C-alpha cells in the first residue's frame, strides 16, 4: 500500500473505517453499508452508545458474536451473524425502511464507486446495461438518512479518479453525500464543492489534487 513516490501511506480498509468511526458521536442512529462501512463498527468503543441499524430490521446491532454464542437467526444486511446490544429491538422490513426513508437515521455510511462535487453518489453499477443489478437498500439509505458519508479508495486500482466533477456511472442518488472518507483524505461536500478537512500524513494538498478530478478547496 506504500505510495513510494511521495512517501505517504494510504489508509487501508481498516484505517478508513477507524477514521470515520472517530467522527460518530454517542447517541447517533447509524446504518453501516456493506464493505468498509461495516468495519466501522469495530472501531466504535463499546462504551460509546451508537445505535446501529440493519436493513433487515435490527436496531441496536452489536459486534460479531463470540464463537460459542452464535445465533443463526440474527444476521446483518450482509447476512453475517451478529450480536445484539442491550436495548436492541426488531422491526419488520417495511418498518425498517420507514426508519431509513422517514429521515430517522442520523447517518448512513456507504461504499462508493464515485462521488461528485454536488454530492451525487454512484455505488451500485458501472454501466446502465449491467446484467446483474445489486441495488439493495443503498438508494433508500442515500435518500433517507439525515447525513450520508461515503468511504472508498481515493482512486481506482488503475489510478482513475473517483472524486469527480460529475459521476459517469449510474447514480444511486443525487446530491446526497455530505462527507467522503477516502484512503487519502476526508472531504466535505459543500455548496462550493469539495473541501479538504483532513489529509493523511506525508501527502500535500497539491498531491491530493493531482489524484482528484474535481477541484478541491482548502478549509
Amino acid at each position, binding site marked *: 500500500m506504500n505510495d513510494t513516490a511521495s512517501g505517504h501511506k494510504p489508509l487501508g480498509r481498516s484505517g478508513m473505517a477507524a477514521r470515520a468511526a472517530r467522527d460518530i458521536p454517542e447517541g447517533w442512529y447509524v446504518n453501516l453499508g456493506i464493505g468498509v462501512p461495516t468495519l466501522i463498527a469495530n472501531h466504535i468503543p463499546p462504551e460509546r452508545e451508537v445505535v446501529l441499524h440493519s436493513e433487515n430490521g435490527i436496531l441496536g446491532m452489536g459486534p460479531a458474536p463470540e464463537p460459542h454464542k452464535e445465533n*443463526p437467526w*440474527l*444476521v446483518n444486511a450482509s447476512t453475517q451473524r451478529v450480536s445484539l446490544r442491550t436495548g436492541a429491538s426488531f422491526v419488520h*422490513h*417495511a418498518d425498517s425502511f420507514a426508519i431509513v426513508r422517514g429521515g430517522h437515521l442520523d447517518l448512513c455510511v456507504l461504499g462508493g464507486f464515485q462521488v461528485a462535487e454536488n454530492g451525487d453518489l454512484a455505488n451500485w453499477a458501472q454501466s446502465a446495461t449491467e446484467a*446483474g443489478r*445489486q441495488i439493495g437498500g443503498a438508494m433508500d439509505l442515500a435518500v433517507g438518512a439525515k447525513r450520508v458519508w461515503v468511504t472508498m479508495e481515493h482512486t481506482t486500482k488503475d489510478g482513475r479518479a473517483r472524486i469527480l466533477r460529475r459521476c459517469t456511472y449510474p*447514480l444511486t*442518488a443525487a446530491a446526497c453525500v455530505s462527507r467522503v472518507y477516502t484512503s487519502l483524505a476526508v472531504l466535505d461536500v459543500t455548496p462550493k464543492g469539495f473541501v479538504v478537512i483532513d489529509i493523511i500524513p506525508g501527502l500535500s494538498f497539491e498531491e491530493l489534487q493531482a489524484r482528484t478530478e474535481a477541484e478541491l478547496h482548502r478549509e
Partner: protein
Amino acid sequence: MIDKFVRSMAEAMNGIRDGSTVLIAGFGDVGAPNALLDGLIEQGATDLTLVVNSAGRVHKPGDPTTGVARLVELGRVRKVITSFIRATSIAGEAVRDGRMTAEVVPQGTLAERIRAAGAGVPAFFTPTGAGTLIAEGKEAREYNGRPCILELALPGDVALVDAWMADRWGNLVFRDSSRNFNPIMAMAGQLTIVQTHHICDLGQLSANEIVTPGIFVDRVLHVAAGDPQLPR
C-alpha cells in the same frame, strides 16, 4: 372452530396456479420459507413471477440448486422482482440469456410496495430512486422541494412465509431477525401460506406479542426446518 393448520405439503400448495405472482419472504436464509419453496418446486406451477429480496446468490458448482434458483433453472419463472441479482447467479444468467426478465427495485421501495398492497394503498410517491435509472418511465413530482416518483403496490397471488411459532388462528411470531419480509408479505398475499417451526395452543401467544394476526394467514404447515444456514 377456526383451524388454519394443514397436514401435508400437498394441502399447503393446493391451488397455486400457473402465472401466479409469488411473494417469498426471508433475508438470505433467515426467515426464508425453504420448505414451502421445495413444495412449490414439487407442486409444478409455472410461468411464475417471484418477488424476493435477493434473486441471485452465487452458485458454487457441485452444490445442489434449491429454492428460487431451482425454479429458475427449471424454467418456471417468467420474471423476478427483487432488490439484488448477481450477474453470475443462476437467475442473473437466465436474465442475461433472455429466459427470464428482472425488475430490480430499491429494497425499501420493494418493502413499501408490498406493505402498500397489504394496506390497500394502490400507489404512493417516494424520493427513493428519483433521478436514477429506477425512475425511467415513472411519473415524477416534487414534494417539499424533493423530486419523487410514483410507485405501485405489489400484491401477491400467493405469499410464502416462515414463522417461528403459530396457533390455529394463524397468529404468528418470528424469531429475531427472521421477521424481515414475513409480516408484510403475509399482509400482501391473496393466499398466505406459512411454514412454522413450532405450533402452540390458541392463547399461548399473548395478545401483545403477536406480530402477525391470523387475519393475514390462510394456511399453516408445521415443518421441522432447522436453523438458517450461512451462505457458503
